[in-house]
């Protein structure tokens, strides 16, 4: 009887082990999907509003939309709301441009005690620094490659 119990127990534990990470994972994917999609939809709503309300178009339109999104991301990080969204949504809150704003404000707030120059201003770029470095470097590289292509052909 006892051995049978143990056997059942082990089987059950193995079964739980097999099943539980999967459901957790599916849930995290679902959360990332709907929160990420929702944040992008806010951006799309802003696009419609600026297009019809202010008559903006093209590059100017998307520039102002990303400005407002970064503003919102920074504001919600300051209010402490974005970190809660992050805990819930994972990738859904990291990848949108609001997550970039979050990565600027969050460490800056934390290191404010070390001063406004070497604390706040320097730590703004703990995560954003690499993004700016790789972004600028890769865009210069793309520009040079295309300049080469246009001038050879």
């Amino acid at each position, binding site marked *: 009887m006892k051995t049978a119990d143990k056997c059942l127990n082990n089987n059950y534990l193995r079964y739980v082990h097999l099943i539980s990470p999967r459901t957790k994972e599916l849930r995290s*994917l679902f959360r990332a999907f*709907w929160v*990420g*999609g*929702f*944040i*992008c*939809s806010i*951006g*799309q709503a802003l*696009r419609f509003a600026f297009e019809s309300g202010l008559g903006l178009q093209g*590059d100017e339109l*998307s*520039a*102002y939309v*990303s*400005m407002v999104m*970064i503003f919102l991301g*920074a*504001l919600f*990080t300051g*209010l*402490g709301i974005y*970190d809660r969204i992050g805990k819930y949504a*994972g*990738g*859904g809150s*990291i*990848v*949108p*441009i*609001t*997550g*970039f*704003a979050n990565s*600027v*404000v969050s460490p*800056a*707030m*934390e290191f*404010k005690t070390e001063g*406004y120059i070497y604390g706040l*201003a320097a730590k*703004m770029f*703990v*995560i954003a620094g*690499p*993004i*700016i470095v*790789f*972004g*600028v470097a*890769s*865009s*210069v590289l*793309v*520009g*040079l490659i*295309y*300049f080469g292509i246009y001038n050879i052909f």
Partner: protein
Amino acid sequence: MFWEIVLTFVKTFAVGGLICVIAQLLINYTKITSGKILVFFLLSGVLLQAVGLYQYIVDFAGAGATVPISGFGYLLADGAMKGAKESLFKAITGGITAAGMGFAAAIVFGYIFALIFHARSKKN
């Protein structure tokens, strides 16, 4: 007109959500940190636009493609490619000019909000 707007939102939601799901898959299956994920998505945006593909996603999904950080990479690459048509100077500065609003907003709003608000304890 109404259904057109609804359809645009559906496409935005689906594509934006899917890009975030890719990030979540990276978080689940690898141990890479969120900072590296941001760099990875930025560089994929640059690369996809450099080969001319990201423009199709932007045309299809609007903000669903431009709001994720890969859209920032798209902006950088697109600016550089447009500048390269004109001169060497604009080939180098074009990407930074196109993304200038993003940089300016992140730095200015980042500083202001970090100044105003205080960090909360990690407990809550």
